[in-house]
Every structure is written in C-alpha cells, then in structure tokens.
C-alpha cells in the first residue's frame, strides 16, 4: 500500500514536471495511508527544523568570527580531535569555527542574491507577459543571451567588472540566476491573462501596471516563493565556486570558497581535514535549503493541499 501510494504521488509529480507529450496515465488508486514523513504536518516540521538549523548557523557564524581568524601557532596542522573537531590549519586556526563562520557568510550572500535575482525574474516575467508582443520578444532574447553564456563565465565577467569582492558575487549571482524562474512566472501570468476577469479589467481600461500589481502579483506569489527558495542552493554553490576561483570574497574573510582554495595547497601534505569537512558542511547546507524548497513546493501544489 505504501509503495502504491508513493507511486501515485510520483506519477502526479512527473505529470507536472514533464512538459512535452505526456501520455495519459491511468493509475490504480490505493487509499492514502498516513505514513511518517508524508503528511502536511511532517513536511512543515521538516521545513521548520531546516530553517532553524540554517538560522542557527548564521548566528553561530557571526559569533564565531573572532575565533575563525584567531591564529595560534602552537596548535598548527592538527588533525581532528576533541579540542578541535575539524582540526586546525597551518596558522593554527580552528577549522570548525572557520567552517561555521564561512557557512554563515555564504548563507547571507546566498539569501541576498537569490532574493534580488527572484525580483528581477518577477519584473521581467510581468513585462514579458503583460507588456505586449515586442516586450515579450525582447525578454525572450534577453533570456537566450543570459542562458547562452555558461554561468561561470558570465559570473567571472561580472565579478571582474565590479573589481571582485562580495558585491561582485552578489550582483553576478543575481544577474545570472533569474531566467529559469522568469520563464515559469511568464507562463503563469500568460495563463492568468486569458482569464475573463482580466479581459474585463483590460476592457475597462485598467492600466497594465495596475493589472500587474493587483492581479498578477498576488496570484503568482506561491510559484514565486517556491522559485525563490529553490534559487538559494544554486546561489550558494555559485558563490562558493566563484570565491574558490579567486573572483569572489577576499582571502581574509572566512568563506567556504576561500577555505577550500587554501586547502588545495595542502593536499599533498595529507591535510585531508582542511578540505573534507568544510565541503561536506556546504553540501549539508545546500541539502537543507533544497529540503525547505521541496517541502514548500509540495505544500503548495494541488496534490499537497489534499494531503
């Protein structure tokens, strides 16, 4: 029964995901069984715990920042132990403090740039869907252009233009991540535009800006929020990547990208802990964000409401 239930949910998911030529699907419905980890409450609880952990990491990162840069040459190059759970680097800095502090920075930068990126997506989508044929063509050309250049290359260019540093990373990530969400929102608003009440508004001479703000915005808000949360993991990963390459945050700030690029120099020396733990911690943070996004998506889908 469990398996059948799961199968049913998956089919429903795959239908909403697949875009082309979905064949008609017939499923033998099994009565839904209350199962741990599937109900709305469990989804909400999972998301809440994830958010709490992420928030705690940010706060702890702030608090640990002095410890993250404090050097202690007596304790350098220590393997992980009880005194230093993640070990220490060649300047005797505690890797746990550095990792948590770096994660905190990454999360904040990820939040800011993902938020900006999603607003760009929303505005662009509204312009494309409500601004007429020319605006639509212009937007789709812009999307083609942004998607045509590999993300990392565009990030390097933008970061270079802004003289590297945190601002470059934020602007870069914000400017490269909007196209996919913009496409989704554009399709949503187009669908909405065909509704009689909007045709009515237009006939009554309501301005496009007003239609966008009063009708389009509230109705795409759920998709927008889900898209926003699902942007976070990408934003964080790209921030770390670009910092790793040397275009992002300055080498003095404790950041995962900086830590890993420093660890590169100690690979052959056998200091495995310098790279393994910070990277794994980043992976966990990305998974947590992804979990929150997926839970939100499930809750807001038509399927989730029935649960």
């Amino acid at each position: 029964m469990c398996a059948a239930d799961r199968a049913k949910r998956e089919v429903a998911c795959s239908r909403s995901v697949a875009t082309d030529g979905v064949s008609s699907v017939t499923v033998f419905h099994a009565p839904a069984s209350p199962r741990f980890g599937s109900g709305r409450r469990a989804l909400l609880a999972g998301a809440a715990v994830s958010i709490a952990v992420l928030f705690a990491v940010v706060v702890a990162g702030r608090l640990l920042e002095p410890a993250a840069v404090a050097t202690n040459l007596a304790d350098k190059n220590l393997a992980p132990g009880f005194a230093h759970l993640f070990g220490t680097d060649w300047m005797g800095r505690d890797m746990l403090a550095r990792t948590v502090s770096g994660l905190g920075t990454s999360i904040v930068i990820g939040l800011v740039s993902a938020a900006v990126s999603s607003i760009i997506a929303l505005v662009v989508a509204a312009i494309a869907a409500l601004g007429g044929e020319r605006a639509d063509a212009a937007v789709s050309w812009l999307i083609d252009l942004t998607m045509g250049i590999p993300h990392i290359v565009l990030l390097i260019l933008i970061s270079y233009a802004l003289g590297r540093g945190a601002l470059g990373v934020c602007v870069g990530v914000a400017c490269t991540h909007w196209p996919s969400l913009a496409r989704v929102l554009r399709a949503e608003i187009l669908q909405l535009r065909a509704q009689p009440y909007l045709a009515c508004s237009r006939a009554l001479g309501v301005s496009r800006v007003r239609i966008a703000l009063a009708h389009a915005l509230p109705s795409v808000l759920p998709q927008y929020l889900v898209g926003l949360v699902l942007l976070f993991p990408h934003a964080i990963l790209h921030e770390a990547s670009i910092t790793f390459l040397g275009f992002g945050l300055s080498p003095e700030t404790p950041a995962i990208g900086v830590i890993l690029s420093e660890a590169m120099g100690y690979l052959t020396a056998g200091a495995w802990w310098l790279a393994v733990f910070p990277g794994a911690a980043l992976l966990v943070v990305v998974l947590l964000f992804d979990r929150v996004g997926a839970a939100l998506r499930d809750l807001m889908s038509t399927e989730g409401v029935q649960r």
Partner: protein
Amino acid sequence: MLRFAVGQIVRFASLMVAVSVLTFALVSASPIDPVQANTGQAAMLSMSAEKRAQLAERWGADEPMWERYTAWASDAVRGDWGESLRFNAPVAEVVADRVAGSALLLVSAWILSGVLGTALGIIAGAMRGRAVDRVIRTYCYLLSATPAFWLAILMLMVFAVQLGWFPIGFSVPIGRSAATVTLAERLHHLVLPALTLSVTGVANIALHTREKAVDVMTSDYARLAAARGEGVWTVMRRHGLRNLLFPAITLQFSSISEIVGGSVLVEQVFSYPGLGQATVTAGLGGDAPLLVGLALATTALVFVGNLAANLLYGVVDPRMRAEVSHVRG
C-alpha cells in the same frame, strides 16, 4: 529549410554581437588596472613613470570603450581577435590552442555523463519504487547538491594523493615535449578530470530520464505490451527507448553549457590547461582581449550544441520532421 538556416545565422550573429558588446562593457567598467594586475605591486613601485605609461599604452588602458570596441570589431570580423596580453600571442591562436586542449576532456565527460545519466534514469524508472530506484535517486539528489570543485578535490585526494593511481595534475607528464607524450599517458591524465566533470551532469539527466521512463511504463501501450506477456526490459527496449531518446537528447545537448561551465572549476583544480583554466587566468590577470575571445568561443560552443539538438529532433522523431516540413513547405 533555407528560412531555418537564415534564421539561425541571424540569431547566431546577434548573439555574438551582444556577447561581445556585453563583455567589452563589463571589462571596461572594471576598476582593475591591467597594468598593475600583471606587473605586481613591487614592480609597479620601482618602475619609472614613462615605463608605466608605455605599458598602459600597450594594454590600451586609457582609450574610451566605444573606440576600442569598434576598432576590435572591425578587426574581429576579419579574423584578428587581438593580442592576448597574458600569453603574448594572438587571441585566436590561444583560444584555438585551449579548445584543442579541452576538447578531449569536454567530449569524454559529455559522453560519459549522457550515457551514465540515461542508463541510471532508465534503470530507476523501470524499477520504480524498489531499492535500486531509491539508491539511484538518493545518489542523484546528493550529486546535484555537491560543489563540483569539492568533488574534484576529493577525487584528487583519494585517487592521486592517497592511492597514487593517477597523476596530480596537468594533461601530460611534466617536463616532456609534446611529441614524446603517448596516447596512454594522455588518457591516464584525463581519467580523473573527465570522471569528475561527467558526474556534475549525471544527476540532472538521470532524474529527467527517470520521469520519462515512469511515464512510459505507466502508459496504456506499455500495459498492453505487458499484458501480451512482455517483460519489463522487453517493453523498455521495444516501446520505451524511442520515446525516451527524445528528451534525453534535448537534455544531453543542453548540458553542454553546464559541462563547459563545470570545466572551468575542474580544470582549475586539476591544473588542466584548457579553456576553463585560460578563462580564470584571463579574468585574474586582467587580460581583456582574451576574456572577450573566450566568452565568444564558449557561447558559440553552447549555441552549436543547442542547434545540434534542434536538428536531431527530426532524425529521432519522424512526426516532428513531418510537422516541420509541413509548416515550412
């Protein structure tokens, strides 16, 4: 057909112009002084003012952007992409050289990710709900959240440093002339970077193929086939593969952008002298002409990939071909 070709050429040209203007604008807006970035702080201080001015002129640091762009563009259409400041060679030459250096890595990673991703997706889709499916899905889920460069570092640590099976970096043994390097040595250097790079693309392709495989296996025609007594794999082979191939090819070709992007990180970790590494060097060293050249080259690569996908649709799906010729005819 002619209209299609002309349309694509126009699109390509407009994309190239836009990318070159964009890169030029970004590079010009940069506060990074190319003279200082390349001579270093100490040399900068000990240099005489006229020497500095001479360098600034050579690097074109003082001219306004539009003047430089028009000058560059009029040369670029004739095949002269300018001079790379960092490598001290024509940009076209450096780019061609780096494309050749990366080609083997990009192609092998690309094929590997496609084959592996599709195979995993089909297996997971056919065995939906079983343990195999769960393992594959967890694996893909983890992979999609893993930073590519961290994976590269781990691979390096385990297989090159600890086990010593593979060299630590570069595409050929150090200190040997290119002529004496054997194919086996090249492949030996290729294994780790190619594996790492392929892994980044696998998750996406596998999960999408799985969705499609699930669609196929729950379709009425698959049920009919099963009722006729065909086993899961027979159904998959006879009825599933053709339907799966179409989205798989789309994904495969649209993943070129990801592979090229990932190669920047992977090549950096493995010190693999290719396109990606040159992009990082150009960006860090303030080598504007080379940056423009590399941005154009990677964009062209991605464009060709998408075009190839569009053309292949017709080959894979005859219905599509009929539709296309009907519309155009």
